[in-house]
């Protein structure tokens, strides 16, 4: 069973790093993972995308065929990749960074939550916490371990807090969802 995740936004948001953290967590969980990326020439400000495929079995084709989960953290990224989403794709956007959200299933204030924690750069950790809770592809303990390894040592604590924040927000959503019997009934 392969799960395909696509995270998109602009350079500097930690898009690629988020993919790496997710992939490494999957490895820690004993699964297989492939992470690929595409980005523009500039390191900050250009379009960036990270694709992660997670599977319990061998992964042959290493690219995303149709994402199970699409996270868009900027308007241009959302506009660009929404067309690639299909029936089964869960689309999550950042509520503030993607003002026109038509087509998205969930709009979450990742960057606002991060700002409340003190630093906007940890928005991707919030996002990771959220999708970990929502998707259940990897365990949150593996995610925490992977996160601690991949962020600068001085910011581990802050990132873990951001992750936890995102995770409980995600959990709330899932609970609410389950209460309602799933998103689409």
């Amino acid at each position, binding site marked *: 069973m392969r799960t395909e995740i696509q995270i998109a936004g602009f*350079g*500097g948001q930690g898009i690629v790093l988020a993919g790496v953290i997710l992939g490494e967590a999957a490895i820690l969980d004993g699964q297989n993972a492939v992470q690929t990326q595409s980005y*523009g*020439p*500039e*390191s*900050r*400000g*250009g379009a960036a995308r990270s694709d992660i495929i997670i599977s319990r079995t061998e992964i042959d084709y290493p690219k995303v065929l149709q994402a199970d989960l699409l996270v868009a953290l900027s308007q241009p990224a959302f506009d660009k990749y929404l067309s690639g989403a299909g029936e089964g794709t869960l689309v999550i956007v950042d509520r503030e960074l993607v003002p026109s959200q038509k087509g998205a299933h969930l709009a979450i204030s990742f960057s606002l939550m991060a700002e409340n924690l003190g630093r906007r750069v940890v928005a991707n950790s919030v996002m990771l916490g959220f999708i970990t809770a929502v998707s259940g592809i990897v365990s949150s303990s593996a995610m925490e371990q992977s996160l601690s390894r991949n962020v600068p040592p001085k910011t581990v604590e802050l990132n873990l807090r951001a992750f936890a924040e995102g995770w409980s927000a995600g959990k709330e959503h899932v609970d609410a969802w389950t209460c309602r019997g799933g998103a689409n009934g």
Partner: protein
Amino acid sequence: MKLSQTETPPEDCCEDSNHRLHKYLRQETLPTTFCVGCGCGTVLGAFAQAVDELSLPPEEIVMVTGIGCSSWIPSPYFKADTLHTTHGRALAFATGVKVMLPRMKVIVIAGDGDIAGIGGNHLIHAARRNIDLTVFMVNNWNYGMTGGQMSPTTPQGALTTTSPYHNVEPPLKAAELVAAAGANYVSRWTTYHVFPLAEAMQYAISKKGFSFVEIIAQCPVSYGKMVNMRSGSDFLNLYRDTSIRIEQARELSEEELVDKIVVGKLVERDAEEYVTKLYQVNSEQSAHKE
């Protein structure tokens, strides 16, 4: 033997633009793809300013560039004939352009890795020939486009992705090297010194012979991430605080100058120019044939 060249009137400049220098740019390509706080845009601005001050029509300019972030300053942003070449070889291409089109200003803007690293040989030879090219070397102390490796100009002791334990190599002083190789005009400024920089650029463009301006420009992303200077302003402050005029620098010893950026005009000569001599030989020999 030369192909006839028909003159076409210059295209109308965009008068309705917000910015007075926009008319020099390929506006459809803006905003630039430079990272936040990158100095390349400032260099482009200073260059457009210099062209503007000189009232130099862009149709009399050929821009030649190599590969790297700084090569993207003219390619595609500056609206003139543009030759975007291979890594390090801009000066070789420019030599061909200048020989065939001596009436045009041939201007090279490229980075330190490009001009002084892989292209170092073409740099010293173009300076030796004293060919009438104007070279603006944007020195950001690293290979920015590939993610921040050390370059030949990276300061000794600096951290980069390929000198993770501090760089053991001494940096190349490009301006001094070019002066030693025989250039007619050499100066160095930083992106903090925008006004004198734009003036030096003007001067370099007007100067006959090989002219070279080294522009220290910030790379807050690829270089800055390793040395923990994350914003363009961090670098501009550094440039302000560590730069020293060459007139003052001459009074100081080598040790005292270690961490200083020497700015100002290093050399000005009036040695004969290469293409002029080439044409001279041609006219002599063509006459000789008759």
